[in-house]
């Protein structure tokens, strides 16, 4: 049942990716400005022959649908062609360089967000409208409302500049870069058994991770809190208490697990937002990941690079939703996968 369900959903990825790539392809070609303009922007005297030569070199002189078809055919075998804006490099190379940084930051932000949100939500629900609840609710409100750009700069000023606890930008102390295995500095430094490098990588993740996690943590915390309050009023919780289970078990084993069911969906949706948030956060912190790459690629009208990055986002998003469905079914026996 599990295998078939997951397999089916993975197959559904194919039309989704085709649809997404087509929309992106059309929007890119409809916006004013083209890659040749960008390449030749400052290049001084240009002849029409040079422009035509570049156009045909990149196949931009063909009809749109032909261009799209060619792109799709090549992309299907993992070939996104040369990047327009990164001289002499293929899109795959450029993306592969940047992907580990984004993956590391997103996973870190995800973990950080969950670790902050779930305990805070549970504690807040135990005494609704108590002091902790009110503090947490106000903090969550701030977390949701503060624009990522501003929050990022505030975190830099407070923790990087005033307190000098954490580094402002970069991924790791340059003297400690671990041997490349996965490209995730935290993982690579653990694999190399280098505690100092791990600590340095973690410290560098802290500020961008926190800025990225804030809106997600806030939403999740609010969700956990309200569903916990709902669950704690249920009969079976009363029953569990009545028969003398320790409060810790009542909360942790009986109430929380049920409260998590609606939370899973919110987490999946919010993690999708994490991905989009990283464009802003990576730009503010100059974090060398996919989000920053996408922003630059759009500015340079680097069509194939934009396509590749958007497809990665789309795949991640679909997989996140799939994971949420699977997890939902695991948590709630009433839900059947079909």
């Amino acid at each position, binding site marked *: 049942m*599990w295998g078939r369900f997951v397999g089916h959903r993975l197959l559904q990825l194919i039309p989704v990716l085709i649809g997404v790539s087509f929309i992106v392809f059309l929007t890119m070609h409809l916006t004013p400005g083209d890659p040749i*303009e960008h390449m*030749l922007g*400052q*290049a*001084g005297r240009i002849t029409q022959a040079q422009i035509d030569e570049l156009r045909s070199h990149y196949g931009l002189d063909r009809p749109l649908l032909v261009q799209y078809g060619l792109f799709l055919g090549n992309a299907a075998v993992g070939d996104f062609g040369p990047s327009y*804006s990164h*001289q*002499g*490099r*293929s899109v*795959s*190379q*450029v*993306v*592969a*360089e*940047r*992907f*580990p940084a984004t*993956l590391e930051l997103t996973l870190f932000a995800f973990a950080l967000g969950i670790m902050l949100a779930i305990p805070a939500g549970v504690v807040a629900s135990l005494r609704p409208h108590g002091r902790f609840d009110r503090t947490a609710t106000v903090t969550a409100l701030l977390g949701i409302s503060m624009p990522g750009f501003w929050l990022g*700069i505030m975190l*830099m*000023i407070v923790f*990087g*500049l005033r307190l*000098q606890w954490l580094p*402002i*930008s970069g*991924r790791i102390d*340059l003297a*400690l*870069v*671990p*041997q*490349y295995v996965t*490209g995730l500095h935290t993982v690579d430094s653990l694999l190399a058994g280098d505690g100092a*490098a791990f600590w340095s990588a973690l410290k560098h993740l802290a500020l961008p991770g926190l800025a990225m996690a804030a809106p997600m943590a806030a939403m999740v915390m609010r969700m956990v809190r309200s569903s916990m309050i709902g669950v704690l009023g249920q009969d*079976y919780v009363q029953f569990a208490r009545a028969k003398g289970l320790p409060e810790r078990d009542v909360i942790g*084993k*009986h109430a929380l*697990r*049920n409260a998590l069911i609606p939370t899973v969906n919110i987490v999946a949706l919010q993690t999708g937002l994490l991905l989009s948030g990283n464009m802003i956060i990576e*730009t*503010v912190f100059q974090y*060398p990941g996919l989000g*920053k*790459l996408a922003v*630059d690629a759009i500015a340079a009208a680097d069509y194939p690079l934009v396509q*590749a990055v958007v497809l990665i986002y789309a*795949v*991640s998003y679909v*997989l996140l939703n*799939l*994971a949420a469905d*699977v*997890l939902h*079914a*695991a948590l709630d*026996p009433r839900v059947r996968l079909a």
Partner: protein
Amino acid sequence: MRGVGSRGGHTRRDFLKRSVGALAVVGAGPSLLTGLLAGCGRRQAGQRALRADLVRGALSVALDADVQTLDPAMHRSRTVEAVVRNVCDGLVARDAEMRYVPQLAESWELEGDTRWVFRLRKGVTFHDGSAFTADDVKFTIDRIIGAIPGLPPSPRKDLLGPVTGTEVLDAHTVAIITDGPYPILHKKLVFQEICPRAYFEEVGPDEFARKPIGTGPFRLVEWIAGERIVVERFDEYYGGSPEVPPVEPAKLAGVIFRPLEEAATRLVSLEAQEVDVAVNVPSDQADRVDTFPTAHLSVAQGTRTHFVGLNCARKPFSDRRVREAMRHAVDPKPIVEQFLLGRARALPGMLVPMAFSYDESLPEPRQDPGRARALLRQAGYADGLEVTLDCEATDKRMAEAIAGVMAGAGVRAEVRVWKKDNLLNQLRRQERDMFLTSWGNSSLDPSGILPVLFRSDGYSNFFGYRNGTVDRLLEEADRAMDPEVRARKYVEVQRILHADIPTCFHFAQEELYGVSDRVSNFRARPDGMLPMHDVSLADEA
């Protein structure tokens, strides 16, 4: 008693197993995708830790833009040039006062009007230990002018004007040949860095763009795209131009260039002492930098002229009276003062005061809305004039201020914002009527700006401007070997342009750098270069 999960036949172990499975899907999917994408992308795998003494002794520079290549011949980016200039020397360079000094050339002389013979410095080696010879100079120039078949065209070709070829006379003598007299060849050579032929041919253009070597004071250690460019001292450096002492290897262990494109991030990083030099401080932040306890501001006059251009070939600005009305409608001085907080200077024309042949006799611009209205009335716009002021996003606020002031003279200007390259191409096709834009001229020679913009066939003649006298004067000036003759002709052109008014509202901004107090010998330069050869760092307490 089992947990809640047991009622549906699920044990906790099931639950855990499935959760882990689900998480694995999330984690594995993208990883698989990268695996697929990575293909040959593992070159980055060469990434490794830097030597601790290099990290400790390196100066850290926050750049305001990222780089897409490090090939000296394949860019038109000041950022790339500023970085690459530390790795690759040129035949000629400029000192901090913008005087021309020989670098890899020892001396040069003209044979006739079109043949420049350069005598090269001996005993200079590239970073791979190979000797620098005339062959490398020939290769470098030939590649830029497109004389080597099979290589992509260089966007720096027009910076060498009428250079048509090179000739190796012996291992340390090379001739550069121009089509007709070209009095400023030596000035233009500061924009070209010498590349080693053998190494280039060995690794090919793509690899060279990632890992160039040169004869400069620093050699490239690594370039991690979007993250950092690290260079370290080249101990066998010949010392650079003897006219810019000290002639010896660099003092710094290395330099780490980091693209920090957000100005706020650059400044916080400078204040927190994570970087030692922050490029391009916004003018409204300049005074704040001077209050940092551990950093100060370094200022140089800029070489980029900002201006409002008017399309002389299309209504309404084909009428000179309307163009003159624009000049009287708005004065750059108060706007520049207010918006750029005095970190800029209003100019009477296109040249900055440092430029060769700057005409000091041009009158300062003065605002006179009454005169502007009268001129508009004469031109048939008694009810005022409606126009669109086009600009790129970074100039939006300034453009809105200009439009606001113009309203006082009966000009209703609507501001329209474009993407930079998009606007530039429309301007080159002469499709816009009135626009706020700019032109950089770090050569500080009028030939880098006046012919480009104001000759009838100038490739950036945005204005549909045609004046036979200007064409002739510019042609003569570009070919006159006598500097005084050139200067006279350029002054005349400036006066004609002032009378014809294809442009108004000129100003130039200062170049502002934030510099840590532990840095000595770093100076902001008008040309935006960042030569680190003589810079040193005080030991930290």
